[in-house]
């Protein structure tokens, strides 16, 4: 037996290493199920080892890019200046038009108390310093961590829309699970019809809206926003635009969305610094603010609301996309 083992030493070593890892894998799966907050020491060490290089790299790229833009890439500055002046005039005109629309939007959003609830949400900006080295997982690392108040399950957004949520927070770094990851999900609703359904990642650029009944009317081009039911994101943040709708196997439709945020090219993000349920108005309060509206989603627990409709005639016409 010993002779066989010594003759096939590398094969025995291979078997031992693989078996140990299989057992470690099994233990981790068990731990993930029972103690979701557990984190392996090795994972922390690896992050601690690699993230300084990534931070330095991100800093270096930023400096080089800044130097290039500000000192070297000025050959077309005069032409660009002319173009910008023209663009400025056009934008002034546009601003005048938008002011009119903005005042209308302000008035309507006040009706739903949306603005106030947003203002209460503390946020922090962060720079993306790395992506997952595993092509199968949609994960990024940001240069802010627990020292900056970032905790697990906090929402991450950009000005364009929802990005994902924090899944691990280290001292100076945090790991963010993107909306496109197959384990990702967000409480959402179709902006126009207010039909609610969770949106889930598929491990590909498009995301899926899973629980909309075949009887509901959904059109390509409609916008999907957060519903607030997941208690991570405030309501009405853009999630995506519907790009494909088919009758699915009963009872739900096959719906695919393109995420609003450019998840494949993220450089800076905003982290919502709260884990408490957002101060969303209860239906009674909302109805005081916006006469006949009744936002049914506000404090409901996050769960698949198959084909659930929230009929809000006034709210539907009142709310505007951000």
């Amino acid at each position, binding site marked *: 037996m010993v002779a066989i083992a010594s003759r096939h030493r590398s094969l025995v070593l291979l078997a031992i290493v693989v078996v140990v890892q299989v057992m470690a894998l099994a233990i*981790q799966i068990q731990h993930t199920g029972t103690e979701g907050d557990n984190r392996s020491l090795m994972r922390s060490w690896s992050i601690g080892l690699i993230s300084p*290089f990534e931070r330095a790299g991100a800093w270096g790229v930023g400096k080089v890019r800044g130097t290039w833009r500000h000192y070297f890439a000025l050959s077309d500055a005069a032409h660009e200046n002319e173009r910008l002046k023209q663009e400025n005039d056009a934008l002034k005109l546009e601003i005048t038009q938008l002011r009119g629309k903005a005042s209308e939007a302000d008035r309507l959003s006040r009706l739903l108390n949306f603005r106030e609830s947003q203002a209460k949400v503390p946020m922090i900006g962060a720079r993306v310093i790395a992506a997952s080295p*595993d*092509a199968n997982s949609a994960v990024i690392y940001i240069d802010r961590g627990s020292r900056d108040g970032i905790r697990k399950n906090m929402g991450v957004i950009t000005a364009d829309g929802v990005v994902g949520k924090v899944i691990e927070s280290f001292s100076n770094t945090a790991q963010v699970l993107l909306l496109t990851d197959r384990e990702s999900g967000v409480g959402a609703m179709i902006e126009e019809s207010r039909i609610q359904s969770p949106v889930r990642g598929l491990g590909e650029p498009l995301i899926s809206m899973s629980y909309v009944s075949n009887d509901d009317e959904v059109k390509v081009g409609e916008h999907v926003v957060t519903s607030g039911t997941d208690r991570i994101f405030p309501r009405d943040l853009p999630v995506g635009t519907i790009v494909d709708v088919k009758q699915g196997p009963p009872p739900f439709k096959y719906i695919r969305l393109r995420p609003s945020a450019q998840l*494949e090219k993220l450089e800076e993000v905003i982290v919502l610094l709260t884990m408490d349920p957002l101060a969303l108005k209860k239906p009674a309060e909302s109805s005081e603010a916006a006469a006949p509206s009744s936002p049914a989603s506000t404090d409901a627990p996050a769960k698949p609301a198959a084909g659930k409709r929230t009929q809000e005639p006034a709210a539907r016409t009142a709310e505007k996309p951000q």
Partner: protein
Amino acid sequence: MNDTFDLRIGESHIEVHKFRGGTILFVTLAALIVQAFVPVYFPKVGILDLPLLITIYFGLSRRNPSTGLLLGTAIGLLQDSLSKTPLGLFGISKTLIGYAASSIGGKLDTEHPAARFALTATFFALHHGIVVLIQRLLLAHAEPWFTTRLAIAALVNSLVAVVLYFFLDRLRRS
């Protein structure tokens, strides 16, 4: 006389290559950092699996199954640590690839670019197969065995490998 020595299996002439001190550690860390950092600015680079290419290269060059599998284990576990995957998914797959690469490296002359291209493509597909097998058996994730993206990724990685290995050859002790 240098630190390389020859193996003779039948009529074949197989060299075991050694590297300058710290090369393996440096190249491994660099591969992991580049793999994590560059796709932030160039998302399409994410199709590359540099840690796998490094595992294959050092396996083929060192031609010692024990070293190959242990290096594969280390690289795989580091990659697991930086991903959200359970520790061991890439650890196991790269352990097996490291072992297979160094075993084959000890039997074949793998210095020709065509041989390297074919071996990298084969190992890439094998690595994917092992990952999918583990995901299906242990993690209950029904990952597809084959996708068009996999075929493209295998092709791209193999092409990159030929160039990358050419430069890594320069780090060998002469």
